[in-house]
């Protein structure tokens, strides 16, 4: 297993940096063009959430390579205000009503696995994995 690589998200430019790193790793471990683009879009969503609502946070990438399968794990951690009602933000259309973004349900769709933990006032941790097919 490779060591974790993380990108700090503070300015909008960092979103591009995170996408670049994520895409490079994805390409390296064998994801096709479509999946690379989906992973990049998921990174955008996660990173924009940090940039817009948490001011500070990071996205960490880890390659998973066990006997059964290979994949990319992404963890977004921030120390922002946290999410009060997770059920609500995980609902389709909650953040997309204006077509402004795919929101967290979008990330869940773009990736294969998804878990979120959040505490008001402390921050949010979102972990997601995509497996190479």
């Amino acid at each position, binding site marked *: 297993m490779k060591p974790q690589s993380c990108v700090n998200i503070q300015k909008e430019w960092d979103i591009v940096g995170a996408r670049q790193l994520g895409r490079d790793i994805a390409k390296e471990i064998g994801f096709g063009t479509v999946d690379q683009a989906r992973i990049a879009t998921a990174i955008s969503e996660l990173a924009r959430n940090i940039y817009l609502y948490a001011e500070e946070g990071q996205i960490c990438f880890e390659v998973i390579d066990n006997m059964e399968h290979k994949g990319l794990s992404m963890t977004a951690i921030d120390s922002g205000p946290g999410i009060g009602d997770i059920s609500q933000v995980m609902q389709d259309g909650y953040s*997309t009503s204006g077509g402004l973004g795919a929101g967290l349900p979008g990330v869940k769709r773009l990736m294969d696995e998804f878990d979120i933990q959040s505490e008001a006032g402390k921050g949010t941790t979102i972990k997601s994995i995509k497996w190479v097919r």
Partner: protein
Amino acid sequence: MDEVVKLDAATYKDLLKHYIQTQDEQSLYGVEQVSKSFIKNHILPEEIVNLHIQALSELYPGLSEEFQHSMDFLLEAMISYGLAHQEIQMLREQQLALKSEISVAASMQETLLGTSKPDVEGLDIGVVSVPAHQMNGDYHHFVKGEDGSIGIAIADVIGKGIPAALCMSMIKYSMDSYPEESMTPEAILKNLNRVVERNVDPSMFITMFYAQYLPELSKLRYASAGHEPGFYYNAETDKFQEIEARGLVLGVSADAGYQQYEQDIKKGDMVILLTDGVTECRDGDRFIEMDEVLDVIRTYSHLPAQEMVTQVYKHFERLQDFQLRDDFTLLILRKEV
């Protein structure tokens, strides 16, 4: 499924090749069919772009790098559309679940509010009541009194859909508890007004028209609680006239009283009761005039009452592009002999 998709992908490539060579309509019709099959198998638009890139680079290995890069760029632009596309499936499923829930609730409501047209010698009755959504916030019912009189209630909860229907069900529960068949229209409205005022959310109002037809006297007795006025058709003069009746909407003031009116009904005369869903039909952005409703009724007045109301409903359903904006209830009573 995967086999189907592979087959579709091969067909796509063949059709593409053929189209590039001949630009024929048949290939385009073919790709339309393939594209529908892709959608059915949950293939997303960015995957179509990817398929296109692959097919083309197999058919024309010497394609320029610029073209390759441009297509990767287009693929990226399609990812958001793919996400939106996936939302459809979710939305469709949720919609289906909600609708089936509502349809169960609606059939519970139908059982609860069910009424049947009384069979009275010489009286032809037609009624149609169609909810704008699945649950009906309009209400009508018939009661046959022991003295041979026919009680007819027609009501409309302000608002439509589920909340209105829920409200209507409560009213029905309350109404069941007192002996309507022995009371006059004014007394019934007075009583109901108290029940509504006490039991229903203060933001909910109900309009109701209550009529009693007395076959032996050929008389209609009625009272209204702020309900859309009905019409009386005089066969002798061949004219419609509004049934005037004043009275406060149910639920506003606990001690409202209601005035009772009377009307003689002769052979061939009609009584037309309705809710504002009929009179407030819209044709595009234009509200229709009451005269138009009466003209349509007149057009079908040679038919039996039930067919008459059905045809009138069909007319306005089409006029409104098959999407009712409000619950639609029309009730016609004709004295035949």
